């Protein structure tokens, strides 16, 4: 461990835009960080790379974001051999000042002086009856299939939910030659007008978004707003055959489809911050618990920093900036000199992205009211097929109104996704059933391992 004596060890978890920019910033200051990512190739979600034998261009893959994707990829490729880069490695726990990793080489622990968590986000989901059928996928999944594997999730795809990704992924499907049956947005159009005051903070991104909607209309894809999802139709054996929704005018309508891409914007991956014992606070605007952090990304625990969508869903451009800021905060706390003007400049950018994100939350709100109306037979926990009725029974019969207690009795949140896809909706079901504000339900605590571990790997060692 020669270099541990020379430089403090900073561990960056995640090699998306936030992690890449954090690592670069550390290296510029003369510190060689450890960069750990579960994925085989750096880039993260939005700039996810295709396998090495695929040939589509950056333009084909990333559209308007091609130049940014290229810059992040090139930026990381240039430092990959210099930093201590550990791809295909999962951080499954944080405890005792160490990260606990698992990879094909085995299990290992690694002590850190500073820890920068850039863990990104996953889709935020509200269940709908039938969402466990084969052929129902998350919106992000639909995009991954296309980006990473050049596939559509079905021959006729309905995009249902809300948020900017709904329009983005649907138009990427159209462009790639897939059949899009409809785009069904739960948010009413009027919300977008109310959101304009904040969305204008990023006129370029706003214009890109408007262009997407236009492209969909031009391609003849029905785009409907203010829609209420009623059911993903089909059966348990053969999977999805369509969706049934209530339109804004109150009529019900069926759309035939063999696949549904479902999602309501994103939720940060905060399990590691939780295991590192960071404090969380309830965000009333988006109705979720988020790890506390200062304007530069310092968490409530000394030596832990949060950047990118894993801290706040502010998008890829902001992730690059907050990754830099978090690295600078870590450097400053370790006694390095940091240029105050750079900090001011970066903070200002993040503030602008935060305003834009507030606009998105107004335009495309989390449809929490759907939870109260979920039929009892609708599955909430896809992992273990626990229904809304099962969860309500637990609330009514045991009086369990706190998320972790209700989980213990109902198993919602206990399955193999560890509450990533049912946690927010489960809390809303409990809140509606018990007639209490959702923040009183609390949040599911993160638990190690943050993902199921392969059973057959050996200890690798301690560093």
């Amino acid at each position, binding site marked *: 461990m020669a270099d541990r004596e020379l430089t403090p060890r900073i561990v960056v978890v995640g090699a998306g835009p936030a992690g890449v920019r954090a690592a670069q910033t550390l290296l510029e200051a003369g510190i060689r960080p450890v960069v750990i990512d579960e994925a085989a190739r750096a880039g993260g979600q939005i700039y996810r790379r295709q396998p090495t034998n695929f040939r*589509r261009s950056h333009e084909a893959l990333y559209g308007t974001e091609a130049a940014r994707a290229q810059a992040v990829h090139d930026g990381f490729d240039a430092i990959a051999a210099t930093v201590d880069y550990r791809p295909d490695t999962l951080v499954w726990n944080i405890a005792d000042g160490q990260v606990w990793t698992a990879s094909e080489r085995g299990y290992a622990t690694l002590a850190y002086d500073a820890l920068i968590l850039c863990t990104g986000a996953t889709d935020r989901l509200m269940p709908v009856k039938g969402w466990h059928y084969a052929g129902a996928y998350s919106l992000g*999944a639909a995009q991954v299939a296309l980006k990473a594997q050049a596939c*559509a999730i079905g021959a006729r795809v309905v995009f249902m939910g809300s948020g900017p990704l709904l329009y983005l992924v649907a138009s990427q499907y159209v462009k790639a030659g897939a059949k899009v049956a409809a785009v069904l947005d739960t948010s009413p159009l009027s919300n977008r007008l109310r959101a304009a005051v904040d969305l204008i903070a990023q006129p370029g991104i706003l214009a890109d978004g408007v262009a997407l909607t236009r492209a969909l209309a031009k391609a003849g894809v029905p785009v409907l707003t203010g829609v209420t999802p009623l059911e993903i139709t089909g059966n348990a054996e053969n999977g999805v055959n369509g969706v049934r929704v209530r339109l804004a005018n109150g009529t019900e309508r069926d759309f035939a489809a063999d696949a549904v891409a479902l999602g309501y914007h994103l939720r940060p991956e905060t399990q590691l911050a939780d295991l590192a014992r960071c404090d969380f606070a309830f965000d009333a605007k988006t109705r979720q618990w988020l790890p506390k952090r200062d304007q530069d990304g310092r968490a409530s625990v000394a030596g832990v920093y949060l950047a990118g969508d894993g801290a706040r869903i502010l998008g890829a451009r902001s992730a690059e900036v907050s990754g830099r800021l978090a690295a600078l905060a870590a450097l400053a706390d370790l006694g390095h000199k940091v240029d105050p003007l750079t900090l001011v400049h970066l903070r200002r950018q993040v503030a602008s992205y935060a305003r834009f994100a507030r606009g998105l939350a107004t335009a495309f709100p989390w449809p929490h009211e759907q939870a109260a109306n979920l039929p009892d037979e609708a599955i909430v926990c896809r992992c273990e097929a626990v229904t809304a009725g099962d969860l309500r029974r637990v609330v009514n019969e045991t009086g369990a109104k706190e998320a972790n207690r209700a989980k213990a009795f109902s198993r919602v949140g206990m399955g193999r996704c560890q509450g990533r896809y049912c946690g927010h909706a489960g809390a809303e079901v409990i809140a509606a059933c018990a007639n209490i504000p959702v923040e009183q339900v609390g949040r599911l605590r993160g638990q190690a391992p943050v993902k199921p571990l392969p059973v057959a790997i050996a200890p690798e060692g301690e560093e």
Partner: protein
Amino acid sequence: MTQGRFVRLAEQDRPSLTLYVDGQPVTAMEGDTLMVAMLAAGRVLRTSEFGDGKRAGFCLMAACQDCWVWTEDGGRLRACSTPASAGLRLSTSQPGASWPTAN
């Protein structure tokens, strides 16, 4: 029902490879994940242990764990994040599992 669930839209000039799903040969391409290999040729990945029917994955980003398949000697693979390899022999149910299983 022989048609695949996933539709290939590009990158179709890759060398092919053969793997086996429940003993049946499946033709896939180099660079496919197991999930794409199985769903470009078929409709499902596995049967839910909780009696709610067939599953074909959900998130494709290694987060939901809905895409588990098994090697014939009982090893568990996450189909959305495991590359397909020639000659691999997969099972859509856990070999020798007690029924139903938790996790």
